[in-house]
């Protein structure tokens, strides 16, 4: 990998010609700029032969540990209501007890419903665009938010190393990062997108994506651009904090103009008002602009429901469900529906038994959702048993890495075994 550590300087010239390399010693920052411009264009087709270059994955992260049992309701299992006397969601067509509400019907035969706040997801299900994977987790579950989130994001049970999506890019990009390959909407970029070479772009609002200093005097713009587009200046150690900052500054300049223009355009459809809806709206604008971005990442918090969870959990679910439905409508209007899938996950589910505070504590396996016109809609796998438990928690039925493998192999056409460092029992959610 040593040759990968210096993506912004000499290696580019080696790849793109001796003439550039020999000039690089005299006017480095200028040459680096133009060399990068070339790479950016080449990177539009990062995968090479056979890879559908316009397919997009949108990752939707529910932070805090989403209560899977109150998301997909196993109303057919009486143990569910025994374990959750005051927060168990009533079966469809039953009379609601207290404030719990009545589940939306998902699968009568399997005895499964959706949280009453998930009308948005229900509409996607009825349209044949929602795959529900049951009991997704991993062995020796970790109940720490951060460790478990890192496990999901690195796709390793040791929770160490780079992110799984970052490694996907590292694997396909031949040592050169793909500018704008992955974009996260939010303040801090998630570990999942971090590769050895590939680094994500992230922003919360496109309007904040430029330097104000050039409004002071136009003469400041040129030196500012030189400084921030210089890449790694000579005699900087490649692994140093300074080199990291110089690389990031260059990424920022490259992404700035284009992203601001794309997000400024109005949407084709109307959107609900919520933070997660706004994030997905930005993603839809970037897709419409034809960005070379393959993976988008959005997130929503508020799922750490230790107490009085019925109201707060319902509100969070309603926001994400409605936002996902609106996103799909916008994609249809853009005629982009067939090249985008969205994957919804949380770091863990919650304990089967409710706690004394009308909430639930950290648990293990939970359902995942995958959405799109190209997913095999329906319920996948069996619901975990509510009696055969591991320390009061569900035993997982599907390793999440098998879902990643499925998406890598069959959606992104990337070698999952290499990226994930092993093979896992794969789900089957992508249409042939």
């Amino acid at each position: 990998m040593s040759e990968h550590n210096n993506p912004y300087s000499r290696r580019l010239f080696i790849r793109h010609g001796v003439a550039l390399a020999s000039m690089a010693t005299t006017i480095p920052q200028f040459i680096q700029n133009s060399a990068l411009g070339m790479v950016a264009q080449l990177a539009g087709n990062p995968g090479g032969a056979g890879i559908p270059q316009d397919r997009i994955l949108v990752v939707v992260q529910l932070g805090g540990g989403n209560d899977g049992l109150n998301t997909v309701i196993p109303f057919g299992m009486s143990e569910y209501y025994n374990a959750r006397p005051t927060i168990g969601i009533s079966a469809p067509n039953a009379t609601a007890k207290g404030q719990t509400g009545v589940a939306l019907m998902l699968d009568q035969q399997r005895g499964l419903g959706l949280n009453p706040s998930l009308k948005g997801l229900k509409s996607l299900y009825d349209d044949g665009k929602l795959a529900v994977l049951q009991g997704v987790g991993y062995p020796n579950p970790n109940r720490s938010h951060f460790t478990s989130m890192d496990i999901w994001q690195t796709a390793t049970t040791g929770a160490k190393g780079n992110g799984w999506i970052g490694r996907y890019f590292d694997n396909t990009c031949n040592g050169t990062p793909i500018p704008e390959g992955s974009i996260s909407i939010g303040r801090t970029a998630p570990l999942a997108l971090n590769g050895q070479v590939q680094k994500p772009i992230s922003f919360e609002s496109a309007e904040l994506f430029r330097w104000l200093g050039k409004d002071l005097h136009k003469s400041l713009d040129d030196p500012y651009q030189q400084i921030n587009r210089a890449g790694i200046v000579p005699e900087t150690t490649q692994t140093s904090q300074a080199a990291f900052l110089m690389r990031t500054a260059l990424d920022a300049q490259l992404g700035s103009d284009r992203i601001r223009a794309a997000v400024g355009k109005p949407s084709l459809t109307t959107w609900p008002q919520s933070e997660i809806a706004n994030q997905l709206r930005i993603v839809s604008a970037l897709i419409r602009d034809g960005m070379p971005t393959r993976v988008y990442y959005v997130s929503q918090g508020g799922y750490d429901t230790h107490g009085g969870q019925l109201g707060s959990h319902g509100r969070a679910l309603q926001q994400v469900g409605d936002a996902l439905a609106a996103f799909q409508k916008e994609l249809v209007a853009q005629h982009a529906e067939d090249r985008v899938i969205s994957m919804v996950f949380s770091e863990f589910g919650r304990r089967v038994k409710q706690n004394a505070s009308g909430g639930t504590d950290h648990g293990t396996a939970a359902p995942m959702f995958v959405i799109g016109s190209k997913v095999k809609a329906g319920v996948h796998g069996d619901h975990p048993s509510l009696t055969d438990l591991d320390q009061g928690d569900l035993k997982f039925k599907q390793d999440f890495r098998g879902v990643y493998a499925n998406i890598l192999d069959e959606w992104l056409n990337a070698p999952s075994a290499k990226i994930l460092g092993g093979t896992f029992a794969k789900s089957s959610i992508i249409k042939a």
Partner: protein
Amino acid sequence: MFEDALKPLPEKAFDYSAAVHLLNRAGFGGTPSQARALADMGLNKAVDRLVKYESQPVEPVKADLFDNSIMSPQTDEQREAARKARQNNDEEALAALQRERNRKQAEDRKQIAELQKWWIKRMIETPRPLEEKMTLFFHGHFATGYRTIEDSFHMYQQNQLFRKFATGNFAQLAHRIIRDPAMIKYLDNDENQKSKPNENLARELMELFTLGEGRGYTEDDIKAGALALTGYTFKDDTFYFNNNNHDTSTKNIMGKSGQFDGDGFLDVILARNECAEFMAGKLFRFFVNDSSGDLSKEQKAFILAMANKLRASKYELKPLLDAVFSSAYFYSAQNRGAIIKSPIQLTVQAVRSLRTPVRELSALASATDLMGQNVFFPPNVKGWDGGRSWINTSTLFIRQNVLVYLLTGRKPDMYEWQASDIPFDATHLVDHLRQPDGSVDMASGIEYLLRFNLAQSPSPLRLQQVMTFAKSRGERLDNDRIIAVLALTTAMPEYQLC
């Protein structure tokens, strides 16, 4: 060999740039003249000045500076009235109660915003920068967020607790934190009862506050620790031990057996070697070097030496901080510019070292939030990850723009800040370079400004980039030109280092 790792810097090696380094790391930077004064003191006195700060007079923090009654619990009469209203389905009374609740919450949200401004102002003005810096360290370490607890006075109380123990005894602070209302509420220990234990505080106490994830404890230890903490709750603004909810059974925790309560549980933890090592590692990242990647052999040795010092002093922090700030290793080239400034560090240091106008405190609070560090609102119980996680392509623009705002008062259209027309007199930065006629040589002035503002020697390329610009704008280094040079310097990627 561990003592070797902490061997002190030779007195004569403590020069001007070392003094700048000390001011930045043990505090939030200082002006050129403050750095010169510190350098003149010599190493020992300079470190004493920062670490033994009690001799510096400071405005005391008053217990009643903020209103403690906004979110105070309902009285028995109010509770009874609410019960009756629900029972009788008295919609009018219920709506009035809801309005009252909304009013209180809105008022409290105003107060937490005031609290943020108050703390940022204190960090900017304090003559005891290390006191505030360690308060900030503990806020990130024992991270507690207002969003969950919704009581600004409890956040204020906790902030005072951190300040009181800033360079005091870590073990004592740990015993106090399990009695802190904000922490108890944040990690649900008010719900932790022997009949229905809640593991949240016990888990984070071991994983994040003392030992480090997975270091020497098991899931069973967490369950036993949770039982030890049952009944640790609070009433209004003070700790309350609810004997009825406390589990008195014998517990096994990490190989020790006893009828542990919360303090007993903590004592078992604090006696473990892992605890001092974990704290040493965190302080190392906060004060010495937060580069990513595996630790080098030398770094490991230094952290071990720090841990030994902490154990030897029975968790007293002053001897450790004194040793770190006096050590040759702390000042070595590999540790200069090896920390990425936190948003608070970036903002407060800019004001303290350049002496820009403060402009709007609310704008500074909003800016630190946009850059990823909203004080009193840490992202989760793990606090802020720090290091490279501060930086991405969007926070980099915000960091550059905050500096433009401080230097000039201009704000981006999107930001809801007050623009400010207070002029910034930057000429004091180059006062010591003035020639007899009062002018400052352009080349030496620019070189000095880059040197002072960048934690590492500026590269020739950067000097050339700024010099080319400055020369194109005339020959005199006047105030406007200094500010232009500062706008460019603070927009350099390496300005984010300290």
